[in-house]
């Protein structure tokens, strides 16, 4: 259990770094979604079911939709 927890947390860090690093904003957004879902998992592990539920619907769902909608009206790539 603890190991799973640790792995998930490390995954979080990797996702965060990747999301910040990606030049392609759409990919970054998708990684952010993955980040949110993993976060929801971590919270389920920590018995915060309510919050996990919310994070899954809001963080992974709504935020992604909104960012993608915003991307569709601006630019997809980050410039150097």
């Amino acid at each position, binding site marked *: 259990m603890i190991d799973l927890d640790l792995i998930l947390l490390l995954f979080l860090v990797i996702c965060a770094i990747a999301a910040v690093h990606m030049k392609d904003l759409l990919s970054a957004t998708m990684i952010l979604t993955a980040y949110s879902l993993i976060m929801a998992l971590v919270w389920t592990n920590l018995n915060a079911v309510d919050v996990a539920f*919310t994070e899954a619907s*809001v963080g992974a*769902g*709504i935020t992604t939709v909104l960012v993608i909608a915003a991307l*569709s*009206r601006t630019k997809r790539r980050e410039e150097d």
Partner: protein
Amino acid sequence: MQDNIILRTVTRILIPFIQLYGFYVIMHGESGPGGGFQGGVILGASIILYAIVFGIDQGRKIISEKLSDTLNSVGVLIYAGIGLICVLFGGKYLEYNILPLGSAHLASDMGILGIEIGVGITVASVMITIFFETARRER
């Protein structure tokens, strides 16, 4: 995406279930995971899904700008109104167990339920509004 027959059919079938689930989550707030906020998000998501699949304009036909704006306000008013009703019955603001519904326990449950519904309506319509505002094409 509007031409994709599979997506359209699946969406048509899924949306009622999503909405049903949303209502369930709203109603079930006080005794299990979930509540007005999460349920509201799910309800909002169902409309957003519809709008994504069938196009923004089609989505706007279902929930017009006027309607979503009204629902925004109505949800908050339900919330605030229940609080004020509590004051009218001599309790503190949002003190539901004072409501005259037989037992204090029932009153409390109903009060929370009312609040959850208010929150759910607001959240759903706010989500829809934000989505439409963000995704709207320039005219």
